[in-house]
C-alpha cells in the first residue's frame, strides 16, 4: 500500500519524465544491456547491437506503460492485467530480472535529478516499481 506522501513523490518525479518517455526509456535499456548483458536475451527482436532508434522506440513503450501505472497506481492489477498476461504467456522474463531493471531505473532517475533525488523519492519509486514487477509476474503460475 502506498501512503499519500509516497504517491506524491511518485507523481512529482513522473512529472519530470512525462513527455520524455523515449529518451528516459532508451537510457534505461542502454544501462540495462551494458550493466547486465544477460538481459539482452529477452530483446533479440532488437538485434545483436540495438541502435538508438530501436532503444528509443522500445524504451518509449516501456516508459509509457510505467506512466499508465503511475496514473492508476491504486489499481495496478486491473490496469496492468494485459501486460501481466503478456509477460506470463509470451515474454516469460525470469522474475530475477525485474530488480535489475529497477536498479537501472533508479540510476537513470538519480543521474537526471541528482541532488534533487531525495531519499524519500528513491524509497517511493523502489516500492512502486517493485509493486509493478509483482503484478507483471503474478500470473506466471
Amino acid at each position, binding site marked *: 500500500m502506498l501512503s499519500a506522501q509516497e504517491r506524491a513523490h511518485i507523481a512529482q518525479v513522473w512529472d519530470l519524465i512525462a513527455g520524455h518517455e523515449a529518451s528516459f526509456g532508451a537510457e534505461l535499456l542502454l544501462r540495462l544491456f551494458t550493466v547486465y548483458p544477460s538481459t539482452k536475451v529477452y530483446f533479440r527482436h532488437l538485434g545483436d547491437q540495438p541502435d538508438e532508434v530501436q532503444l528509443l522506440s522500445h524504451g518509449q513503450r516501456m516508459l509509457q506503460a510505467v506512466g499508465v501505472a503511475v496514473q492508476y497506481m491504486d489499481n495496478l492489477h486491473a490496469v496492468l492485467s494485459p501486460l501481466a498476461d503478456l509477460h506470463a504467456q509470451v515474454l516469460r522474463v525470469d522474475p530475477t530480472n525485474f530488480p535489475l531493471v529497477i*536498479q537501472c531505473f533508479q540510476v537513470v532517475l538519480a543521474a537526471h535529478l541528482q541532488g534533487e533525488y531525495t531519499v524519500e523519492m528513491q524509497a517511493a519509486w523502489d516500492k512502486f516499481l517493485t509493486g509493478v514487477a509483482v503484478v507483471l509476474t503474478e500470473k506466471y503460475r
Partner: protein
Amino acid sequence: MVHFTAEEKAAITGLWGKVNVEEAGGEALGRLLVVYPWTQRFFDSFGNLSSASAIMGNPKVKAHGKKVLTSFGEAIKNLDNLKGAFAKLSELHCDKLHVDPENFRLLGNVIVIILATHFGREFTPDMQAAWQKLTNAVANALAHKYH
C-alpha cells in the same frame, strides 16, 4: 577471481578520487535504512530511526556509514585480491555480526545510485557497469568466509 580491465579500473579509481567518503558513506547507509527498512534490524543501538529525516541526520548512522565506505575504499586499492582483502571482515560479518550477505548487495546498489546523484551524466552506462561489477565483487568477497 574477478578480473577488472584497465578501463574498469580507471573508471573506478577516477571517480573514487572525487568522492567525499564521509558524506557519501552517511548518505549510503542512511538511504539503505530508509529504502529497505528491514535492514534497521542490525542497528537497534543507533537511537532514533523513526523517520527518513531522523535516519539521515542520525550521527551514529553517519559515523558508521563513513566507516563502511572507508573500508570500501580499501577494496579499490586491492582490486586484484578482494577475497584476501576482505577475509577478516567476512568472518566478522558472519561470526559476530550475523549479517545476511544480501545486505551487501543492497548497500552496493545504493552506493551506485548515490554516485549517480553526485556525478549525473558523467556516470555513464560503462561507469555504472564497472561500479556494479565492483560492488558485486565486494559483496561476494564479504560473503566468502561464511559458513
